[in-house]
């Protein structure tokens, strides 16, 4: 199990901030670092994995915590 380098909580944020915040944070991270995202917006739970690949990042896991609350682990590609 990968240990997150950084945690981003976007619960309660409106569309499209969960996606935008995740992408901006990943851009600033080094290659191989792991970002943990906590989110509760159903559309983003499906949309973020769809769009990660285009940026070269790698989805490690999506875990449903309770109800709409999800925990996502992403390995940064390191564009810096």
């Amino acid at each position, binding site marked *: 199990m990968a240990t997150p380098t950084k945690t981003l909580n976007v*619960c*309660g*944020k*409106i*569309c*499209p901030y969960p*996606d*935008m915040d995740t992408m*901006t944070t990943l851009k600033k991270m080094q290659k191989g670092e792991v970002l943990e995202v906590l989110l*509760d*917006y*159903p*559309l983003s739970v*499906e*949309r973020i994995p*769809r*769009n990660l690949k*285009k940026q070269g990042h790698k989805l490690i896991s999506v875990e449903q915590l*309770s*109800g*709409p*609350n999800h925990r996502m682990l992403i390995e940064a590609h390191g564009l810096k």
Partner: protein
Amino acid sequence: MTPMISGLLVGALFGFALQRGRFCMNSAIRDTILLKDTTLLKSVVMAILVAMVGFALLAMGGLIKISPSGFFWGAHLVGGILFGIGMVLAGGCASGITYRIGEGVVSALSAAIGLTIAGTLTMIGFLAPIKDYLQKGTQIWVTTPVEGAEPIKANPTLANIFGLDHALVAIGLAVIIAIIWIVIALKNREEPEKKEKVPLLTAIFSKGWVWWVTGIAIGLVNVLAFYLSTLAKRSYPLGITSGWAGIAKVLIGFETVTDGVATAYKLGWGDYLIIGIILGTFIAALIAREFKIRWPGWKTLGQTFVGGLLMGFGAITSGGCNVGHILSGVPQLGIGSIVGGIAIILGAWFMAYMLFVRPQKT
């Protein structure tokens, strides 16, 4: 079926499909430039094609009458662009903010309150003269001369401006778009991702729907909406903003006076539709365990409220929101809805650029 039952029923089906499909036209339009993601846009086009064919068939069978909204280019441009700007600020289109209330999204409620206030003021309040000025000043009809009588005026559509049969143009156009789409899709074909098999009930009630299922479902709900609303003497497919204004009219005790007799406004089909959407979403979200009161903070609430105000003024001025114009008017080939829809897209792209793309460049 009374207008109440039928409005609530169609609303509940619409809300259920919106929630399961995460259908939002704000995302559909905005994501094309922001995330280069076209998944929701494909749902929208699918819903339009299904409705285009469905409406044409119902009209051929005499069950509905094609009733496109008026064409007033000035009102469509001003109202549509403001609506597009507003929906990016509000974080959802008119149907998007309505259904998310049923998921417990507080910012969606604040946007809907803004939309209702501005929409009602533009319909019957102090903003109405601006709307009337823009609409009356720029309205264009298709006129057919009648011998010995006044010429017949009709709202222009892609069919009647060329004097062609509606069903022929609607079905023909849907087929052409579908063929172009299939050709493009085959060219850009990607390896399909391996998906785990899930039982049908789980796929319907707990997982998010695939884009084409959402598109077809929403298109079919819209066809049903046109038929049932015709029975209720409303005669238009799905629409959102005037329904919210209708609810506001009841809350403020709005009365119309004819021949000195005051009649209180009563909820109609389109108003029950709104209540149905929220109920349908609530049920869908409960089953999928996705209901949660989401508090976004006061700053976001302010932003979505202002977005809602722009949407309300824009929709009533333009004669339709993203649903009334793009989902319901475009399939009827209404020129006004096509122009109104393009204006919404331009407004949304402008605001998405200002709010999200530009800050990243600096």
